[in-house]
Structures are given as C-alpha cells and as structure tokens.
C-alpha cells in the first residue's frame, strides 16, 4: 500500500464526506472551537454531558480531509464514554500519532489515522479535534 493509500483510505474518505456526526447540537452543554490558522482547518465540537458521561457529541466546521475525518472518528469513539475514559483514549490517539506503542484496537476507526505519523505536515490536522476535546474536558 502506498503512503497516500494510508492517508486517504476508504474509511477516512467516508468519514470526511458523509460523517453522521456533522450537525449542530442544540442542547449542548459544551461548545468549543478549534482552529489551525496556518492551514485553515476550523471545527466546533459540541458535547452534551450528563454528569461525567458524554451523552451526545457532534461537530461542525470545515477543513482538509484529515482534520474532518479525524474529528468524526473521535466523536464515534468518545460518545457514551465517561470523561476519564475519553481523556485516556484521546491520549492514546495523540501517542499513536507521535509513533508511540499503543493498543490500536481501542481506538476504533481512528486507528487508520496512524499513517499520518509519516506525514509530518499533516500531524496538526489529525490532532486538532483531539486537542480541542482535551481543552473542553
């Protein structure tokens, strides 16, 4: 598989083009914007928290395929989880992008983004949503 195949795999393209999480959450308890001024990626993450549980989550915004797919995959992963578990998974993802040894299976679809670690210019795109979620939680 070529590097680009890893970067623009079917799973990533599917999340980019048809994310089920791309919507505004009217009854959100948390709303946070994340943007990368150098490449124009700009997302807003919405969370509906019930105590420590992330009951619902969604995002809006625009940007490159990597940033948008990564956001969608993150929401897939953390929906229904509690705060502590979500933060642990976020750290796992960040570690994966930084080429550390992690349990890939725990990351669901998001594990396909491990190829991004070979594209230094794209690391920021992949991490945007995850860093933004860290800010919220």
């Amino acid at each position: 598989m070529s590097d680009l195949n890893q970067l623009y795999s079917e799973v990533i393209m599917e999340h980019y083009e048809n994310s089920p999480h791309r919507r505004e959450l009217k009854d959100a308890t948390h709303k946070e914007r994340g943007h990368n001024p150098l490449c124009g990626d700009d997302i807003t993450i919405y969370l509906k928290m019930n105590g420590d549980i992330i009951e619902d989550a969604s995002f809006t915004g625009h940007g490159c395929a990597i940033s948008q797919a990564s956001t969608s995959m993150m929401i897939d992963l953390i929906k229904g989880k509690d705060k502590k578990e979500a933060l642990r998974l976020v750290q796992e993802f960040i570690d994966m992008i930084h080429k550390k040894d992690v349990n890939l299976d725990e990351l669901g679809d998001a594990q396909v983004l491990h190829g991004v670690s070979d594209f230094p210019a794209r690391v920021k795109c992949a991490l945007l949503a995850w860093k933004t979620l860290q800010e919220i939680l």
Partner: protein
Amino acid sequence: MKYVDVEKIKKDFPILNVKPHGKKLIYLDNAATTQKPISVIKAMDRYYEELNANVYRSPHYLSALSTQAYEEARERVKKFINAKTEESIIFTRNTTESINFIAYTWGMKYINEGDEIILTIAEHHSNILPWQMVAEAKKAKLKYVYLDDDFRLSMKDFKEKMSDKVKLIAIQHMSNVLGIINPVEEITHIAHKYGAKVLIDGAQSVPHMPVDVQKIDCDFFAFSGHKMLGPMGIGVLYIKEDLLKEVPPFLRGGEMIDEVYEDYSTFAPSPLKFEAGTPNIEGAYVLISAIDYIEKIGLTNIYKHEGELLEYGLQKMKELDFVKLYGPKDAKERGGLISFNVEGVHPHDVATILDEEGIAVRSGHHCCQPLMRYLGVPATVRASFYLYNDFEDIDALVEGLKKVRKWFK
C-alpha cells in the same frame, strides 16, 4: 523558453537534484523562498574562509576586507534598484523587518490621531499588522482599497479614499496570492499630491522584474534577499534621501552612534544610524552573488520567461474543469504565480498529494487572511515560478492535479 536557457540554469541549482519520495523535484514554491545557485552557495563559504571580521570598528586587515565587502553590497543594491545614494540602502533581516522598521520609527512619530493609513485588501500580514499597531497606538484610521471584478486593485476605490487626512499608503508591488502588479507609479503620484508618503512591499516584485525606485518615486521600499536567490536573514529597506534625517533610529546600540554621554547620545548619519549592532555582513556579501546571477540572466528576461510560464499554466489549468483559478484572467496583468483550488478538495490535501509526486506548492492563506475572507475561501493552493521552471514543470503540475481528482472523486 526563448528568454532564458532553463536547461543550463537548472544545472546551477544543486538542490534540484533532491528526489522527494523518489520523484524528480518540481519546485513551485518560489513566492515563499527561492533556491540558491552554486555561486551563491560558494560565496557563503568564501565569506567565512577569506574575509570574516566585524565591520567599521577594527583597524586590521580582515576588518578592512569585510567592511569593503559590506559597502560594496550596499553600492550593488543601490544600483540594482536605482536608488540615488547608498545612504538610502539600509540592511535589515527581511521585508517584514523593513516594514516594521518604518512603522515603529516614521509611523509612530508622524502619524497622529485622526490621520489615515491606506492599505489594500490583498496585503500580506506583514504589511497589515505593523499599521494596525500604529493605528491603535496613535488613534489613526486604517482604510482598505478593494479589488475590481477581475481581481485587480480598484483605482476608483483608491482615488475615492484619498484625502488630506491620509498620511501613508502601504501597498504591495505584486500580490503573493493573485499575482497582480499594482500601478505603484500612478499611486505614488496621486499620494504625493495629497502630501502622503508611500511605502511599497516589494518582496514579490524585486526578484521577478526590473524595479526602479526613482521612477516609482516611492518614499520607502522593502524587500528580502531569500526570495531572489540570496540567503535568508538579509533584507533591504530603501528610504528616500530627503527622509533620512526625519526617520528616527529603529534599534539603538553599537555602531549607530556619533557621541554617547551618560544621559544622551547623538547618532551617526545614515545608513549607520539605522544599523545598530553587528549587521548580517555575510548575508550582504552573499547577496552580491545573487544579484550577479540575476543580472547575468537579466530581470527583463526573467519577467518575460515567467510570463510565458504563466500564460502556458493558465491555459493548461483552464482545461481542468475541476480547478478554480483566482486572479486576473489576462496573464499580462500579473506576475508568475497561479492561485487555485480543486473543487471539493481542501488545499492542504491537494498539496499533500502533489508532494507525493515531487511537486512543491504552498497551500493555506498565504499570510493574507483578509484577502481570503474577501475572496470567500479559507485557503488556496499556489504554484509560483522562477527562472529554473519550465513547461515540463507545469505539465507535471497538471498531471498531479488529475491524480488529486482521482483520490477525491
């Protein structure tokens, strides 16, 4: 390719042999920085092997050499942009520093409450932020001139915004996004009638076309060495001779003084007054080699060569129905760069896929966020040309874009 011998020129640039991802390098990011010919690279070595010493102060052999080299560089730059005197040529780090220099010195002294500063919507951030600072500090007003239907600067809008309140027009000579070349002579002529000064950001013009600061009649002109085959960290600020006394020193310290007492000092005449501390002597020396190289080819030839590339590129890219182009349709109105977007694909993704083909382009807002907002896009892709590019490079770009289309159907 009748204006320059690209095949021969390519051999002078060792970096063109680098193989990104195993592919031939197609370097189309010249508006960001240019590559360096072997003569410039060798000059860097020669400086440290043969003449390194601090300038002006020491009476020894090497210092005499480095001082001579530094002053020769000034003389060379003076001729290159046809300034009247060497005193008008100040060495800085880059265009950004040159513009900030004038904002912090002349701007902070002579722009006052109620005064106006005119910019254009296509300015680079480095010709916006310093003036925002002055406007905020002095309660002055910023006014932007917008574009016409064909992306050119609207002279109608400019004339309407001119008044006696305007103290400064800060304008780019050539846009790093749209490639438009602004009618700076006409603008300066109008500005002076109102008593306003004109600062020109020449970062994108000086490397690509003959520039004559006396003909333009501007008051300040800024450009960088690294965008014209020279090293990074050397820039030029031109100050018209009758303003040299009016402009206060920027940084204060060693070398820029006449006499220093415990509680006050007097300053040396220009250019030393404006060059506190040890300057980038190496950079100035190596810049001579870059100017040598450019003048050997000839700026008119370079301009015409890029014009051919632009015309060919625009033609080829118009044939791709999934590509949207920004900038005037007529190649004659602009310099050698093309900003575009691929329908439905973010510029960053376009650049990554092109990179896999060995093609280096820039993607993003190009440090022109107000312009991006004005155009209604978050970012664009930019392919910018120089003397070592040829039609084959553009063909490669077009093929690369077809691959982008395949990935993002």
